[in-house]
């Protein structure tokens, strides 16, 4: 069960970190991430199956494509609407996910698809069953977590990203080009969503709703970890993974979809800043 939770967490952690970063800049919960993940899954599918690229290459290409899409959406849709309230933008982001999902349906139909890669039987390890694919997902997820941390903590651009998220005005005064930094952040996040699309395609199936199904667990992980805290997102992802696995012990499994919501609600009521976030000072 612990292992199940670990795989769930590895799947959710990278997009939760990306969501957290994106939230820092845009200041609203972006439901479009569901659409972005679906774009990643279908882009990787297109490169992998019809075009015949090996999966790692296809995944890289899909990350590029998704990064481009996310950046484009930001420039075309969200940037011109900056003056709107967070809630209006939230509704727009749901509309955007619906649009993306249906554009994909238009071109690919709702058929179930998979990558050109054989399913593997598990290794048995200390009573747990684990497949090489799952190990890869976990490792990649860790690598990304560490890389993202290094980027944010030790590089100039990472510091600039945090500065823009904290206080765009101050950052601008200090000579940070906020537009460029924002573009960079959206592209990084896009790449992560693209990768999540690939992982989701490996773990589940590729279909237009694949991203939407992951959205709530991702939100739960990011909120649990404290918005704006990529590390928190990893821990949050682990807890959400565990909670979903544990539900089945107490409740009929048909209630599982509700678990993410309940976690969010309970946590927000008890500790609105998340487990690892710092309390926000109200203006």
């Amino acid at each position, binding site marked *: 069960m612990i292992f199940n939770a670990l795989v769930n967490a590895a799947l959710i952690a990278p997009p939760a970190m990306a969501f957290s970063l994106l939230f820092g800049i845009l200041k609203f919960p972006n439901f479009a991430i569901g659409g972005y993940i679906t774009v990643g899954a279908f882009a990787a599918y297109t490169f992998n199956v019809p075009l015949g690229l090996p999966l790692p290459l296809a995944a890289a290409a899909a990350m590029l494509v998704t990064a481009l899409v996310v950046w484009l959406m930001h420039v075309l849709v969200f940037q011109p*609407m900056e003056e709107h309230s967070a*809630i209006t933008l939230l509704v727009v982001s749901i509309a*955007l996910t*619906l*649009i993306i999902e249906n554009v994909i349906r238009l071109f690919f139909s709702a058929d179930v698809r998979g990558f050109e890669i054989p399913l593997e039987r598990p290794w048995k390890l200390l009573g747990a069953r684990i497949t090489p694919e799952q190990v890869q997902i976990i490792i990649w997820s860790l690598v990304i977590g560490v890389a993202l941390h290094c980027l944010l903590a030790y590089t100039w651009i990472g510091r600039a990203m945090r500065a823009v998220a904290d206080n765009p005005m101050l950052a601008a005064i200090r000579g940070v080009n906020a537009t460029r930094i924002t573009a960079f952040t959206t592209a990084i996040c896009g790449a992560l969503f693209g990768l999540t699309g690939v992982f989701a395609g490996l773990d589940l199936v590729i279909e237009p709703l694949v991203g939407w199904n992951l959205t709530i667990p991702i939100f739960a992980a990011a909120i649990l970890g404290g918005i704006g805290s990529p590390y928190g997102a990893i821990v949050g992802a682990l807890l959400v993974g565990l909670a979903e696995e544990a539900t089945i012990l107490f409740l009929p499994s048909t209630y599982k979809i*509700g678990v993410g919501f309940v976690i969010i*609600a309970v946590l927000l009521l008890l500790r609105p800043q998340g487990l690892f976030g710092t309390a926000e000072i109200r203006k």
Partner: protein
Amino acid sequence: MSAYLISMGTYVGFFMILALALNLQWGIAGMVNFGIAGFYAMGAYVSGLLVAKLGVPVGLAIPAACVAGWVLGGAVALLSVRLREDFLAIVTLGVGEVIRLIVLNEDQITEGPRGLRIDGRPFGDLIGPELYPLFYLLLVAVCVLITYLVCERIRRAPMGRTLRAIREDDVVAEVLGKNVLMHRVLTFAIGGFFMGLAGALYAHYVQNISPEVFMPVVAMFIWMSVIVGGAGNNRGILIGAGTVMIFLEGTRFIGDFTDVLDAEKMSAMRIILIGFLLIVTLRLRPRGLLPEPKFNVKKT
């Protein structure tokens, strides 16, 4: 044809009641509710179950559904006073989903995925089948009118001013001696009341409800109605609800003229168009088709 317009008019009526209620909660009082589908389901199932399982007269079941929505609204509002609005969005979405899951899973009571058949309907014995759809349209129109008048009354009354003050800055409102909590809970509950009403009217109209009807996308359409119409403006909301319904339904007719897109592609196209409606409206008319009128603030 006229039968179709009557039935679409009835559906627009459900949308209008929901959108007016949301406008009261969000447009006027600034409280987010993404759990509309849950309130709608609550109203539909409370009224439907009372009639279908307990044989309660429709005339009592519909008010009971309203009260259920009222209680749910109050409870959600109490739960959420501490939340930031963007988080409240997710929590209320969760409330809606949990209600749907309960309806789906507690099938001994709700019939779950089998769907609940409701034979009883208001004045079903008195009015012949020929005239019934028209009667129902009138009934729904009267309910829209009542909802509209109540919402408009609240908006114009001192309470509306207080709510707007809370919406703009709750701390200042609190400092000015307004009971912020009471106003919020009350407004959310009133919104819930009307959403419950819409659900009950829907249930007795279609006479067959199942959990699949109450997916979160319902909330999406209502939000679009409010944003497109103009948040804060009750008349704008009526237009918004109508516009969204025209896009939802009107796009069906494209399929009758062209064979280029099959039914699957056509329905993808329809959702894409509706999404664009929202984005384009916001780009061209950022505050909706009929923006909220500015209130004069007397400076002293």
